[in-house]
């Protein structure tokens, strides 16, 4: 949970109270007093950001040009490598393989999350009060489960010998699955990770989508019905346009979230078997911290940030534009 949704959601509604110049009379009264106030109020936030985020970013950039392994670390040596780390990474196959894997992984998960999340959200809107409460509570339970705890539980559910998933598959007639080792191959490990991530992410999309649908004015639906629109037509002409900004913001948020997913993948099988389920953040971590190639790890993490920025560039540009319009 690290990205706001407000800006996109508020789009359709008229803007009240934010943006635009204040009434002229007021400005005169408080303008002088407020001269330095906003900066003073923002100093702590900006300083904290500079120290605890800005500095690690800069440090990461510097590290990525260094040859820093266990030996240099212990002896406090600074060896420069220029763009050597980048040449090695971009010239090798592994980085590209992991990048493609990460993009496919993110795309599959985000698509599943958004499509199913919207369907469940719309279902919530159709339910009666009691059933809606039942489903909401179940969703909230999944939403609130801490990632590490959820990962542990999924390992138990998918346990080869005594896991309940294999038992069910066996009973359904899929006898070869009775003792199936889910973390033994790349695809099945990814399957478990995907089920886990989708299970954890759906509630956020579904519950917030439902909350957003409750803000759609009823008159719009009535008008559409009067014009003889069917269920699908109502959805495409009323519901969807209204929810579009919300969907855009949520998709963006989920892309970042899935892309960065760390505990789920790491705790399930540490990127294994044979490093086949490593995504970019895990790859950077394994190279940097696991194999003690800190310089290489830093270079990979910088490239990871570049890939993430490329994947979210569209939305970032939209947001930039919106803030410009507002200011």
């Amino acid at each position, binding site marked *: *949970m*690290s990205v*706001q949704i*407000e800006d996109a*959601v*508020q789009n359709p509604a008229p803007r*009240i*109270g*934010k943006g635009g110049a*204040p009434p002229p009379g007021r400005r005169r009264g408080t303008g002088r007093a407020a001269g330095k*106030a906003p*900066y003073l*109020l*923002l100093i*702590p936030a*900006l300083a*904290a*950001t500079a120290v*605890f*985020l800005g*500095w690690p*970013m800069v440090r990461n950039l510097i*590290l990525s040009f260094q040859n820093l392994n266990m030996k240099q670390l212990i002896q406090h040596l600074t060896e420069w490598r220029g763009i050597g780390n980048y040449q090695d990474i971009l010239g090798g196959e592994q980085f590209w393989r992991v990048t493609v894997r990460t993009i496919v992984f993110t795309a599959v998960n985000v698509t599943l999350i958004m499509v199913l999340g919207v369907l469940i959200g719309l279902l919530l809107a159709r*339910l009666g009060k009691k*059933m*809606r409460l*039942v*489903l909401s*509570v*179940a*969703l909230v*339970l*999944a*939403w*609130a*489960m*801490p*990632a*590490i*705890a959820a990962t*542990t*539980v999924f390992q138990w559910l998918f*346990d080869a010998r005594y896991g*309940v998933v294999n038992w069910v598959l066996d009973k359904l007639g899929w006898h070869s699955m009775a003792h199936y080792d889910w973390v033994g191959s790349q695809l099945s490990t990814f399957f478990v990770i995907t089920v886990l991530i989708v299970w954890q992410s759906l509630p956020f999309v579904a519950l917030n989508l439902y*909350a*957003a649908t409750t*803000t759609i004015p009823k008159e719009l639906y009535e008008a559409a019905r009067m014009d003889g629109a069917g269920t699908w037509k109502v959805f495409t002409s009323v519901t969807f346009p209204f929810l579009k900004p919300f969907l855009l913001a949520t998709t963006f948020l989920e892309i*970042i979230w899935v892309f960065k997913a760390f505990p789920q993948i*790491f705790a399930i099988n540490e990127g294994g078997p044979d490093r086949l389920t490593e995504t970019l953040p895990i790859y950077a*971590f394994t190279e*940097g*911290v696991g194999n003690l190639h*800190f310089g290489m790890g*830093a270079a*990979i*993490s910088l490239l*990871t940030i570049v890939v993430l920025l490329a994947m979210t560039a569209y939305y970032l540009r939209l947001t*930039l534009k919106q*803030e*410009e319009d507002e200011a």
Partner: protein
Amino acid sequence: MKRSLLGRIWPNAAALVLALGFAFPVYWMFTTAFKPNGDIITEDPVWFPLNGTFEHFTTAVNAPNFWSLVGNSVTVTVLAVGLSLLIALCGSFAVARMRFKGRKGIILTFMVAQMAPWEVLVISIYMIVRDADMLNSLVPLTFFYMLMVLPFTLLTLRGYVAAVPKELEESAMVDGCTRTQAFVKVIFPLLAPGLMATSLFGFITAWNEFPLVLVLNKEPDKGTLPLWLSQFQSQFGDDWGATMAAASLFALPILVLFLFLQRKAVGGLTAGAVKG
């Protein structure tokens, strides 16, 4: 509008199946934690812990360092969330209520900051903390967690502050309040739902954080609960009862908090958003 019987049944049936699917892993975690080993290591699952036992919880609680790590987790989380609320409140007031040079740039800075890929910055953060000779300390953890939640908190609170009608504040000022007094007496109480929603997310982020603590706090009694849980699992291997008890103990505070504040969190976020 008339709906057929089938038309009324299928949404409810679908909802029931979904509810079971979403709740089951949580149910399975808690029930496994209460089952004696014989009911866990079995060819056919035991669906309800009829022969309930607290044995696994005892194992988990008596595992090395459990209580000191609980203390660490609580300390770090509360401090990080408290600090970020304080800092974010000041900042959000400035960006929501005041016009000044560079406002747009500052908002953008926080927008980009909340995208920060902390997961891949662990290497440089490790170097910084190591050079400061503060590995295995709670201080850097607290500050980094504070910053992890700060941008989100600030930007979300901005929506809440903006949603409070300016007139309220102005009339308080006309009545003789200073700007600060107007804020404390009029606006702050109206921000309560927003503060609760954002602190809930802050709490979850800090309580769950894993990659950073994994790298920074390696000494067994210096970490936090996520680290404890992951190590507990590798240590107790196939003792699923104990592992599920440990996971339950770790997840319970968040689950309870979330169930209580759920309405505020969901409604709050979107309400703040739409009114923003």
